[in-house]
């Protein structure tokens, strides 16, 4: 039985409609359409562009003469309608982080994190909260029992700040709700503090015990509030024309697909969504799902300079970066602009991955039993990052820019921004498949080869090994092992002529670890890839001419034509 679905994504920059058919064989994209989203002003009906995109995609499918009536419509929202959440916790690194993670996995944007140790005075926290345009607050703090025996708990001070600082919800004129995912024992006292001024949604504690983190109830509460709240938002009143469409934040929808992909592959997965003004990073590592959102406005010109292919481009960098921050939807229209644009994206991606590494961690605050091998280690206290690139074999790039920039340009961002380690398969989601699959009820086996564009395989020794020789990387074809070209200090391109499954094998030195432990050989299969790259550059090494190195990297990935690269080399305009 074939089922048909439509996914409408109302994004900050564009609104996309995709028509899907799902059968026992899997999901198939029938057609897609893209319409620019109008600015998210209060007076604008944002569903107007969704309706136009829907009409267009329906017409495209019906061109074949077959009538198309979708059985289900999924609407995902990231254009100003996504839940904007302020999080509150007692200790920033413990309950504060848990509240933030709960909001993020629900697809929300976290605007602020209030905590007793956030370095602000109480009146500053209240003022900061009042000035924000938020749709809800997620509050965590304290375990479920025995918090009241130790005097007045800081949780109540946090509740007082929330009660005093809660702004009116814009548009609807109603109160901003608070998702209470904090101590069970503190509920009565918190309710007294909130009084009638706050609508509270009670959920299970995210940290009912210090050793556990349970994000699902708080996440579901955020999603429920979002689904009910969006229909009252004046900018989304037109959602009614799509019937009883399921409405989700785009971040949550993509997150569902990422989790599904990790389950099917039985591997750790990292997905990057390049959305123009923000970069979302999703990961499912060791069974822990994490999502972070990093605004690109954080990028500084002084950090971007090192990724430029020519010193001359640096003269315009300040102006271009500032303009792009003001209007992130502006696309580069010349090779110079593209070089600046990629350098900015590379730095933004680097910072997004760094932030994700800090958020995707083992739980802080837990009392962990030391192992014998850890007897002499100092840092055994939880809080270690889960993002270690040798654990991650699959990286996928999705989002608005994944459909615009060439796979080569996207691939060129990866080695520097991620500091890869071992064998990493990079896929590009050009059609925005990942955010759509939550619409498909019969979940297909989400194998990346079948739905995503394989961009390339990157082999890298990481930081463990400074120098690698010619017999470090091998490719297995027809059961014969052939060594791959390795140029110390450079990236080499290895074309794979037949898109058949190939196996890459790495032979590290005694101390080198490429995924299976020190000195152990590592092999990985790759299907459908046309290119592999051996990155033998040394991380963190100071180069004599970083511009030349960047030009070489771009030449290897084939991002710019040769005459443009040689023009930069000669300093030509």
């Amino acid at each position: 039985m074939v089922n048909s679905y439509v996914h409408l994504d109302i994004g900050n920059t564009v609104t996309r409609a995709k028509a899907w058919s799902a059968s026992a064989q899997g999901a198939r994209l029938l057609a897609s359409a893209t319409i620019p989203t109008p600015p998210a002003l209060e007076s604008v009906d944002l569903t107007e562009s969704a309706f136009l995109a829907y009409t267009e995609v329906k017409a495209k499918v019906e061109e074949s003469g077959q009538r198309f009536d979708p059985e289900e419509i999924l609407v995902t929202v990231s254009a100003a309608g996504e839940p904007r959440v302020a999080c509150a916790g007692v200790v920033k690194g413990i309950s504060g982080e848990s509240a933030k993670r709960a909001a993020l996995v629900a697809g929300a944007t976290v605007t602020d994190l209030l905590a007793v140790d956030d370095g602000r005075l109480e009146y500053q926290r209240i003022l900061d909260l009042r000035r924000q345009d938020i749709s809800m607050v997620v509050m965590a703090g304290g375990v479920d029992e025995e918090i009241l025996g130790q005097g007045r708990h800081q949780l109540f001070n946090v509740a007082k700040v929330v009660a005093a600082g809660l702004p009116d919800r814009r548009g609807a004129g109603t109160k901003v709700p608070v998702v209470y995912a904090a101590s069970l024992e503190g509920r009565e006292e918190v309710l007294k503090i909130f009084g009638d001024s706050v609508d509270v949604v009670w959920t299970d504690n995210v940290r009912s015990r210090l050793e556990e983190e349970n994000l699902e109830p708080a996440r579901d509460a955020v999603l429920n509030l979002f689904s009910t709240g969006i229909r009252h938002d004046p900018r989304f009143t037109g959602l009614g024309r799509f019937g009883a469409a399921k409405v989700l934040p785009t971040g949550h929808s993509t997150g569902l697909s990422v989790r599904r992909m990790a389950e099917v592959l039985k591997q750790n997965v990292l997905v990057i969504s390049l959305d123009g003004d923000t970069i979302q990073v999703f990961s499912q590592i060791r069974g822990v799902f994490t999502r972070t959102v990093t605004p690109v406005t954080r990028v500084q010109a002084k950090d971007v300079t090192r990724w430029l292919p020519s010193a001359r481009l640096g003269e315009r960098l300040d102006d271009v970066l500032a303009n792009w921050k003001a209007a992130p939807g502006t696309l580069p229209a010349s090779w110079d602009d593209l070089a600046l644009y990629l350098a900015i994206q590379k730095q933004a991606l680097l910072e997004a991955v760094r932030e994700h590494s800090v958020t995707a961690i083992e739980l802080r605050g837990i009392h962990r039993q030391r192992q014998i091998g850890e007897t002499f280690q100092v840092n055994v206290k939880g809080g270690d990052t889960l993002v270690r690139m040798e654990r991650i074999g699959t990286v996928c790039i999705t989002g608005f820019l994944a459909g615009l920039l060439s796979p080569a340009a996207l691939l060129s961002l990866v080695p520097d921004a991620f500091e890869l380690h071992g064998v990493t398969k990079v896929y590009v989601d050009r059609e925005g498949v990942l955010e759509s699959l939550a619409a498909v009820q019969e979940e297909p086996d989400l194998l990346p080869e079948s739905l995503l564009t394989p961009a390339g395989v990157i082999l890298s020794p990481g930081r463990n090994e400074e120098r690698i020789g010619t017999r470090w990387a091998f490719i297995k074809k027809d059961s014969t092992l052939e060594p791959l070209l390795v140029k110390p200090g450079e990236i080499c391109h290895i074309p794979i002529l037949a898109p058949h499954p190939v196996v890459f094998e790495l032979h590290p030195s005694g101390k080198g670890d490429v995924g299976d432990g020190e000195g152990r050989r590592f092999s990985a299969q790759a299907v459908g890839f046309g290119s592999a790259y051996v990155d033998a550059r040394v991380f963190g090494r100071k180069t004599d001419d970083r511009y030349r190195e960047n030009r070489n990297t771009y030449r290897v990935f084939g991002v710019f034509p040769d005459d443009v690269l040689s023009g930069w080399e000669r300093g030509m305009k």
Partner: protein
Amino acid sequence: MAVYALSRPRVLKDAPVRRLRIFPSVGESMVSPGSKVEAGTILGKYASRQRLRFVRMETAGDKIAATLLVTEGQKVKRGEVLGYYSYMFGLGYTEYTSPCDGEIEVISHATGRVAIKEEPSEMASHLPGTVEHVEEAVGVLVRTRGHMVVGAAGAGYARSGALVRKAGEPTEQVSPQKVSPQDADRVVLAGSTVTKELLEACLRSRVAAIIAGSAPFSVVQWYENLVQELDWDEFLARYWARELKKKDAVVPRPTEIVPALVLTEGYGNMPMSDEAFELLSSFEGKPVFVDGASLAGVAAGRWDAGPCVIMPFAGAGGEEATDGSAGSGSGDPAGRPKALRELAPGVRVRVYGLTREPVEGTVEGPAQEDSALPVSIPVNSVRVVTKGGETITVPAANIQALG
């Protein structure tokens, strides 16, 4: 060709406009929703940036050696003598004056410091209209009707004044010599790029605001720091404004020392768009509202606080402007999807970005699927036949339907 995937309207004509007038710090509103306001109406008061100002007097041991003329709790005016110190048998004489209007909070005899709590500053509306909403401690939302030029960047607080055109065309760069003290409290329409020298000339001449096409990022950054840090004493010291040093000279509000700056195109070296320049030029001599949006940062995510120039219609204060009465302006954000839908074959359009001048033409039909920028980025495009008979493929975001 600049291509904007984000179809942000640059000019709104005859549109309802809402503007959040933000208090620079914690403020208290003096108006209520529904009340009519004029440009000079005081919307509220806010605690000044420095809160406490200190004057240090001569001490001897653990008491103040100077003769004090004030007591704790006493109200003082700027320039008022707080005390004096005579030494060397009257040969030396020091007078201590109040740096601001306010109230003597504390006199510390041990350190010789006199703390003055500064009087709250007033915030004028500068925009005639109707108060739609008061956000406690944050600001006041004023509703009006008029034309609006959306700025790509800016610096400074909100100001208003009569518009004076200094550039003959949008590409002209205005020299600092063109600005004189006669331009005080006026809004200067400069052409393409503003320089640091021009901004300093405007500051010295006490201009209310500057509207230009662009400015280098480093210059805007310098100007933004000036907006944040320059107080009246520093201004007098730096710009040596003799006539302003008189005791009876009116001290401007802290937000009205540095002129507001709005850049219509952005950072770098770009001329002002013809559409914005024409619209602004047609308001020469008439009052306009300019906001450089230095305070937009404190209201993150607010759509109604960015840099802009508003030309309110006469009598807008008494007019009820509602969303339902959106004008027929070509750049009305609400009309954008409608305009896109109307890019059907035969529709007359104006194309921006091909040359400096917009080109008029007629839509022939949608472009092929593979239409792309020179750097291979695919974009939604349409085929347009220009008046000259040439058929071109243009990104939809660069097209304005002419109705």
